[in-house]
């Protein structure tokens, strides 16, 4: 499992920045998984980094920078969803897939597989999606995921089981996907 711990005592702001930089690829993957859209994922990553820098004094030395970033990203994502609900906006999953990626050729190359993955993730409730991404994709332990999501470890386990059961249904029978999606 990748993850860097800033040690006790001597960790300055530069160390945190360097560790944030090292964690950036994984943060980007997590954000993209949450958003199911590359462009939105990068916006969330950028906002996460901005907030983390503004609140770097809140980082606890000796803890993992990547876990801290994941928690900030998850909280910002939830806040954004609440705002979207109030505005009543909804982007159909097909549009997300069409727009995914900054490079059109890249999207074409990976479209089929990535589209199916986005569809599977889109069908999960957000809380299950976050638990799945943290543990199954980012390799966080149940304890770490529980701390990031602020839920008991047992809840992490059951969310993962439900997520995997739902994913299996979708990937085995993609035609059965609901158009409504789950935000």
């Amino acid at each position: 499992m990748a993850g860097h711990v800033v040690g006790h005592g001597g960790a300055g702001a530069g160390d945190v920045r360097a560790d944030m930089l090292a964690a950036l690829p994984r943060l980007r993957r997590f954000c993209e998984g949450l958003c199911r859209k590359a462009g939105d994922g990068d916006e969330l990553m950028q906002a996460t980094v901005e907030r983390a820098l503004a609140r770097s004094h809140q980082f606890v030395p000796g803890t993992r920078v990547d876990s801290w970033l994941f928690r900030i990203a998850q909280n910002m994502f939830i806040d954004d969803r609440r705002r979207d609900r109030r505005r009543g906006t909804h982007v159909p999953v097909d549009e997300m897939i069409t727009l995914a990626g900054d490079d059109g050729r890249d999207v074409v190359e990976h479209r089929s597989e990535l589209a199916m993955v986005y569809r599977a993730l889109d069908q999960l409730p957000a809380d299950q999606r976050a638990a799945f991404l943290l543990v199954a994709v980012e390799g966080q332990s149940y304890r770490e995921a529980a701390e990031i999501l602020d839920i008991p470890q047992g809840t992490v386990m059951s969310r993962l089981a439900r997520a995997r059961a739902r994913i299996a249904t979708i990937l085995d029978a993609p035609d059965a996907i609901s158009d409504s999606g789950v935000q």
Partner: protein
Amino acid sequence: MTMSDVFGREDRLSAWLDGALDPAQAAAFDRDLAADPEFARQAAQWRANDLRIATALSAATERPMPAATLDLLATPAANDNPRRRVWFVAGLGAIAATLVLVFVQRPVAQDPLSLALDRTPSLADAVLPGGRHIVPALTAQARDGRWCREYREGGAVALACRGGNGVWHDEARGAGTAPEASAEIAVASGADDAVLDPAFRRLGTGDAVDAATEARLIAGHWGK
């Protein structure tokens, strides 16, 4: 079998996949799997799905980072010192070399090439004054402790190492054969750089570092 039994079983399957069972629980679970081929098939399916999703999403870790995000994480010293200020302009172009960093010449302590090699991740295209372009391809450490970077410039490949004064000196240069923006260029694998092999051997460079290590070196001013 009750619904709670079903959920409990799938919870344990998830925990087994995640290595979250203790040894005794894992051994008991292994026995359950061996006794139930359908359950074993489900376990294999879930594991394969995890891998499929992780693989698809991992493309996100391989694309060059947005310059705006990298700029945010540049150390305050680098941003605040006008003698070392760097202007980043992001652009997405060819498949691999999609990040363009423009280095505007100011009264700098370092020459533009050194500044570019100090600040540009591998795969990114650095634009120097006069329209000169370089694309770093890999980073490795020489036996004497210096950091060295292979980079491409047009049709040429070069290997430069960083001196204690922050100036990068070319140790070797020659004709390369891969296009500048080739998707073959990667942090841990150079393009056709055979012309540089004697210099690599002379310097005793180790393996190329991975992207995360390189990012830390850039952020930390190469250990300065």
